[in-house]
């Protein structure tokens, strides 16, 4: 069987998603029998020459150069993966979309004229995406599932339900209904395995919105746990405030 040609690209992000690929230590040696890393500047000096079967794009688009680059990657890749929250929703850095570009630049740089930056967006704003892999970072098992899908020529099985299902599967007590703590689990996309609630911390929503969340009702429930309206706005704005699902509650 011919190996799948894979590339990993970094846009505006923190490299944590790339680190999570390297976290699949157990699977890496076998994985390399199925795929070939054709381009991944963080770990190899190889230049990008051949077109790709699978392109993982980590990070958001936030400069004109990145718009050009993401379009080129789209043209030269069979399967384009929006890899992690920044590529899917904009993640935490999208909080800055709620202040003006001018304000952000002036606040940070004495000479904003040297800076080339535009509003921060997920990559689907500019190109068609084949697979959206949410998470900050996406769990390594979901990364392997995407590769598996590509190898077997089928859609990857990714979850689109809420974190609550994962809590139930783990037999966790409910932090929201039993302890009245402000947990974002009911609207948050699963995939992490309910890491935070299992460790006595409420879900903060780092996998972005699940499919068709009821954000309005979630906001009401959060108020009932004792949060202020400003607190609720901050919760929705944190990981995916710029998405249509959360925009109203985040503004």
């Amino acid at each position, binding site marked *: 069987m011919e190996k799948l040609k894979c590339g990993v690209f*970094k*846009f*505006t*992000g*923190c*490299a*944590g*998603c*790339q*680190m999570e690929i*390297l*976290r699949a*230590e157990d699977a*890496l*040696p076998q994985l*390399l029998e199925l795929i070939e*890393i054709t381009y991944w*500047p*963080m*770990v*190899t*000096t*190889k230049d990008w020459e051949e077109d790709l079967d699978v392109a993982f794009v980590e990070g958001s688009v*936030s*400069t004109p*150069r*990145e718009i050009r680059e993401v379009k080129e990657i789209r043209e030269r890749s069979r399967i384009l993966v929006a890899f992690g929250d920044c590529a899917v929703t904009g*993640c*935490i*850095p999208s*909080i*800055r979309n*709620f*202040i003006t570009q001018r*304000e*952000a*630049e002036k*606040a*940070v*740089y*004495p*000479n904003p004229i*040297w*800076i*080339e*930056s535009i509003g921060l967006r997920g990559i689907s704003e500019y190109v068609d995406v084949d697979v959206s892999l949410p998470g*900050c*970072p996406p*769990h390594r098992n979901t990364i392997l599932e995407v590769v598996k899908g590509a190898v077997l020529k089928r859609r990857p099985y990714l979850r689109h339900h809420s974190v609550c299902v994962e809590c139930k599967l783990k037999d966790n007590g409910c932090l929201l209904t039993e302890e009245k703590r402000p947990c974002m689990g009911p609207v948050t996309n699963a995939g*992490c395995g309910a*890491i935070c609630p*299992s*460790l*006595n*911390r409420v879900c*903060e929503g*780092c996998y972005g919105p699940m499919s068709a969340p009821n954000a309005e009702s979630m906001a009401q429930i959060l108020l009932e746990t004792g949060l202020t309206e400003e*607190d609720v706005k*901050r919760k929705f704005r*944190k990981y995916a405030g710029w998405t249509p699902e959360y925009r109203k509650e985040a503004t």
Partner: protein
Amino acid sequence: MSERKINVDYISRVEGQGGIDLYVTRDGELRDAKVRIFEPPRFFEAFMVGRKYDELMELAARICGICPVSHEISALRAVEDALGVEVSEATKRVRKLMAMSALISSHVLSVYFLTLPDYFGGRDLIEVAGENPGLLKRGLELKRLGNDLTELIGGRSVHPVTAVVGGFTNSISKGDADAMRKRLIEAKSDSLETVDLFKELDIPEFARKCEHVAISRPDSYAINEGQLASTEGIYAPQREYRRFIKEDQVPHSTGKHSTVKERESFLVGPLARVNINFKQLSPDAREAAKSAGLRVPDYSPFRSPLARAVEVVHCINECIEILEAMPYHEEPVQVKIRAGDGYAITEAPRGVNYHHYTLNRGGITTKVDLVPPTCQNYRNMEMDLKELVPPILDLQDEEIAQRCQMLIRAYDPCISCSVHAIRIHEVK
């Protein structure tokens, strides 16, 4: 003949997006050397204003996917400083355990995956592993050990979740602590062999004396807490960082350049730490360092990877000690919100990581000032290039470019971090 320009468009095997530009005059003199940083800015210091004290560690973690632990702990300690919270000794120990676990994985990644291919003549570790399968295996296992320890404490290794203001949301069981301790004991020989590797490597003979800066304390190897110290005599509380260090924006870099006020550029990171805190290293780490050719103080940037390997030996030792006294069961300290300023410096794998927050009476930030390590090193990298390049200008452009990339890799820059690390002036 026009001016000769040697450049690297996109430095590979480092985190983030940067390049190198060398300008050589017609007379064959190096006119300028620039480390060009084109990583897009993310404006953390702007959007972290207006956020609440209990989520700052979570936001700050996202500055960097390789050193999220250091950003979390800097943010937590700065917030605790502002609120006047004193955490327990047990919390301090677990935080140090977590910081060292991240240091181990980051350093091993840097040494094995980013640095060694240069010395073994491969484009990446996978190619090198063709002839040296042991290297890939050992590199993966040591990296995994660090990551697994972070995950044991924090739920996951990238952006861990259990460290909160006042303490931790959970604790490690005795069984897990013992199993991890056993793995660390077994890994000691691998860490010593990693240091030994450097005896065989053809490390470029290049040294340039410059100021080294790290945090320091007399009683232990400083990672999360200490005084700001330097080889040129700085010794001051962490809140006085800005009294000594200034930053300037330069046109060719989205990461700012730092200098010590009224002096020059400086170095932060493993080599600076080992030089300043050599006495506090564990005895076998000191012994290993000497036997592999580290001279203290050592001013060769090409021996930074060796300093990383030495720190891995030390961290494994200290992690074993801390785990011996596990488990700890404690609830996070209760917090009373008040207005104020808080400061903290931790040692990220790449060096001094300074956070400063101003909170209002509601515990909401009104000002955020962050200085991760890599931006503090940019100017020093350029100063090194300016001395490294002239004697090798008779080489082919490609060889010169390769040597320069090796230098930058020795710094192990974390470019994403550095570009989100710029001073903000008060917004409201």
